[in-house]
């Protein structure tokens, strides 16, 4: 009899929990449903807000060059832009399966990515740079990276470059972090010899970080590296809208304004 009561209580608990979960699910579903009554088209954009000055979080607001840029494009093209933060590596899959309409995240246009998504015209020329510890005299350029400990952000062309170095010389050790801030921290604490990353981001880090023991060395390389906005493959309508918007804000001076604000 006591076992029976226990069983009943347990089943009841399971049911209550299940309903509680269903209740939660229902609520989020409702909030995510687009408001059909309004005329303003919504543009759901994904980013990875750990990449200053392109995207970052300040006072619980998403700010940065990319954020200003996509909002400006949205404005001239009549879209209400809603931005969502996620892992950098999750951006392309999210565009692919339609969870977001577009991704803007200092994302380099690469042949590999072009197999999965379409890109707008390039909106920024980046290029890679090496960052090392201030006392480091060994590493002067890309040729010196072989056999060293390197850090980069997962999914970036900096990480791809580190892999190339490792493939050429197996003594190289790579530490691939989920965001670039952690890679810089690793370099600051002396865990790695160098960080390979997009030049504007590393430059911004050195400008804003207090007490940093990092410096940049060598020339900017992989200079053909350009950023684009990713949209779902075959979504020509959105691609045209964004490209058009990009041209418009370049013509009306908004692009230059945003550029000088951040660089």
């Amino acid at each position: 009899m006591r076992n029976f009561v226990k069983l009943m209580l347990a089943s009841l608990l399971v049911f209550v929990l299940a309903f509680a979960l269903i209740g939660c699910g229902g609520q989020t579903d409702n909030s995510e449903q687009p408001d059909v009554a309004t005329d303003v088209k919504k543009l759901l954009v994904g980013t990875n807000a750990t990449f200053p000055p392109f995207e970052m979080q300040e006072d619980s607001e998403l700010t940065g060059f990319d954020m200003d840029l996509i909002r400006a494009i949205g404005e001239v093209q009549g879209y209400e832009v809603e931005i969502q933060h996620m892992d950098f590596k999750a951006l392309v899959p999210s565009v692919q399966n339609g969870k977001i309409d577009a991704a803007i995240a200092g994302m380099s246009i690469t042949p590999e990515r072009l197999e999965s998504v379409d890109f707008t015209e390039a909106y920024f020329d980046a290029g890679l740079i090496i960052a090392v510890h201030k006392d480091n005299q060994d590493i002067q350029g890309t040729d010196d990276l072989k056999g060293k400990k390197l850090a980069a952000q997962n999914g970036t062309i900096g990480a791809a470059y580190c892999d190339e170095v490792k493939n050429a010389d197996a003594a190289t050790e790579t530490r691939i972090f989920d965001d670039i801030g952690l890679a810089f921290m690793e370099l600051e604490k002396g865990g790695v010899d160098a960080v390979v990353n997009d030049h504007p981001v590393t430059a911004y880090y050195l400008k804003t970080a207090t007490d940093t023991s990092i410096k940049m060395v060598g020339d900017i390389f992989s200079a053909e590296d350009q950023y684009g906005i990713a949209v779902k493959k075959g979504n020509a309508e959105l691609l045209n809208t964004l490209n058009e918007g990009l041209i418009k804000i370049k013509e009306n001076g908004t692009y230059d304004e945003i550029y000088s604000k951040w660089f």
Partner: protein
Amino acid sequence: MPLSEFTFGLGILDAIATSPGYRVVTNNFVYFLGGAWYTIFITALSIAMGMVLGLFAGLAKLSKNKIIYGLSTAYIDFFRGTPLFVQIFLLYFGVLPLIYDNDPLSSAIIALGLNSGAYIAEILRAGIQAIDKGQMEAARSLGMNERQAMIYVILPQAFKVVIPPLINEFIALLKDSSLVSAITVAELMHRGDLVFANTYQATWVFGTIAMMYLVITKTIALLGDYTERRLATE
């Protein structure tokens, strides 16, 4: 996809074998297996560390000495009461660099070992307390001192009681070891992350990795069942 694809089983197999995700998995399967070994290796060392820490902390928790009791309570409270993910970052970037030139692997084992030690301490304490008081009294009346009674009479019996919760903890720790991918330890989850970031094949990559975790955790569970049966007295 034409219906004919589904009328013959081989058509489906062909479709799978030519899908890009399948190729990603076959190309990286050995790499993933290496990650699985790494995961087992890290977990095994962490468990070893956790067992030693847990035994001391668990016994300390039963101590009448206030300082020893307080220290072990503080240790257990902290490592059970804060997220492992936070502990990993705190140790890797904060505490351990002050002590030695820390690398990801050793830091991961220390973090997982400290964390599991706290859980194992509570498991062992409960196990020791589950042994009838009469056992201690009987051992003492046979002329053993408290330490001897603990080592030769209480602990062997307690060990049997704690096997199921310990197996539970080992399985939990093995799964939690995926968190150290954040500090770039090349275990199974990290390798999946790296492959996913370049191929975007979420279902295939993480599906494969989930299966590998499942095989390992199921093996641990079976080993636990076997040990339990071997030690059963009734």
